[in-house]
């Protein structure tokens, strides 16, 4: 039996294998980069690893960048069929008026996650009387993902979620939650097919902790995507979502606004 098939351990979807790996969620993408082997628990789960593969199989790359007082996320908008209604194809979802979620990976799993997140955020607001903060929602999503890695009866979701919002105390926040149940706050990050290349690009850009303005944030995100995928986009080929401290509502940019930024980028270069 080839090594890649899990050696008989992938039938019971959440148990450990001899190398201390859980089958089905997985840090495959993390291990491939030389820099990141010291990263999280060096300790991938196959149940989890396959879920990460599913995220990559969607063949879409997403990028998120946090500026000084704004956050921008951008993703490819691949419409596989001309007959499809483009407005219904989206990976960018408002969870509340103030929180946005960019889901990279399996769209059906994304919709489940978004539905549950919306419910949870609404209940939170009702129960506690104030808006659910970004980190609390991210933790909730990550904790749910962890349950799927430990209980055999549910498979992990094939989705990496980037949550963005403006926190009352901490300002602009960008969190990323993965099928393994990990979640971190990020200055910039990426998910999907070209995740590692994008992270390498962003690390160079954000090395000196620049305090990016709103325009710089959006343009860094879009130009990172363009650079990593090595193509120049039209405004209809990408989706962009933002939150800004001066107007903390989560907003999806219109095609015209995206065009303005694309033009600014090409003029800059």
């Amino acid at each position, binding site marked *: 039996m080839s090594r890649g098939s899990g050696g008989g351990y992938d039938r019971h979807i959440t*148990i450990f294998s001899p190398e201390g790996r859980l089958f089905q969620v997985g840090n495959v993408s993390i291990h491939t980069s030389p820099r990141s082997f010291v990263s999280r628990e060096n300790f991938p789960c196959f149940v989890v690893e396959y879920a990460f593969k599913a995220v990559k199989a969607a063949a879409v790359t997403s990028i998120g960048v946090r500026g000084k007082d704004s956050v921008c996320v951008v993703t490819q908008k691949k419409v596989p069929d001309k007959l499809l209604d483009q407005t219904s194809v989206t990976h960018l979802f408002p969870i509340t008026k103030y929180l946005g979620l960019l889901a990279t990976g399996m769209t059906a799993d994304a919709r489940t996650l978004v539905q549950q997140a919306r419910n949870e955020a609404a209940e939170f607001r009702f129960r506690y009387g104030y808006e659910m903060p970004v980190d609390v929602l991210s933790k909730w999503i990550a904790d749910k993902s962890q349950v799927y890695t*430990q209980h055999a009866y549910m498979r992990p979701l094939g989705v990496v979620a980037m949550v963005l919002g403006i926190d009352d105390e901490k300002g602009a926040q960008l969190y990323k939650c993965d099928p393994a149940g990990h979640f971190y*706050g990020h200055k910039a990050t990426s998910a999907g097919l070209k995740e590692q290349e994008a992270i390498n690009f962003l690390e160079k850009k954000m090395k000196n902790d620049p305090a990016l303005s709103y325009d710089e944030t959006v343009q860094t995100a879009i130009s990172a995507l363009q650079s990593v995928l090595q193509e120049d986009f039209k405004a209809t080929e990408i989706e962009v979502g933002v939150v800004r401290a001066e107007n903390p509502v989560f907003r999806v940019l219109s095609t015209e606004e995206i065009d303005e930024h694309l033009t600014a980028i090409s003029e800059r270069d």
Partner: protein
Amino acid sequence: MGDSQYSFSLTTFSPSGKLVQIEHALTAVGSGQTSLGIKASNGVVIATEKKLPSILVDEASVQKIQSLTPNIGVVYSGMGPDFRVLVRKSRKQAEQYHMLYKEQIPVTQLVRETAAVMQEFTQSGGVRPFGVSLLVAGYDDKGPQLYQVDPSGSYFSWKASAMGKNVSNAKTFLEKRYTDDVELEDAIHTAILTLKEGFEGQISGKNIEIATIGPKRIFKVLTPAEIDDYLAEVE
């Protein structure tokens, strides 16, 4: 817990009498980032490496050491998501005790209840063991205490212990340096030196976490600035 379809345990005995899943869980712990704890005569210190996947990660958003009650804290080696589950359960157990007895839960009891949860997951249907070992540090009427809990649910009280990638070197180092009457401040320095031993790269307040509990019985996670001060003292 678990669906009715999985009313059988996934952790079963091998012919040689071992619970192989637990062994694998320990392997998982052994590949985790190094953490350690030292019990001093007047307190306990716990510490861990905090290596993040990328410089893009906001290290202020990550806190590996967590408090369970005002006078008990915990650190782990292994899988972070599993750790969060245990922290949540332990906090709830501590709070339930407090509600019933109007008293802070003793360290031994909290450790025992947490360990019982971990054991449950090695025997119940449709679940896997937790991929973490915990170091629980607390100070109650019995004095300063340090416990290590393993994925099997077994726990021991330690004078000093380490877990994770660099466990053997760290333990050797601690064995040499430990004395029964060590004071908290010295213990903090020893903890830092132990972490430094196996540390890849430049150690700083941003890539390690340290927490202490002293005679005032308040569990406190040190700020990066305070850690940097201690690092300077150690130089």
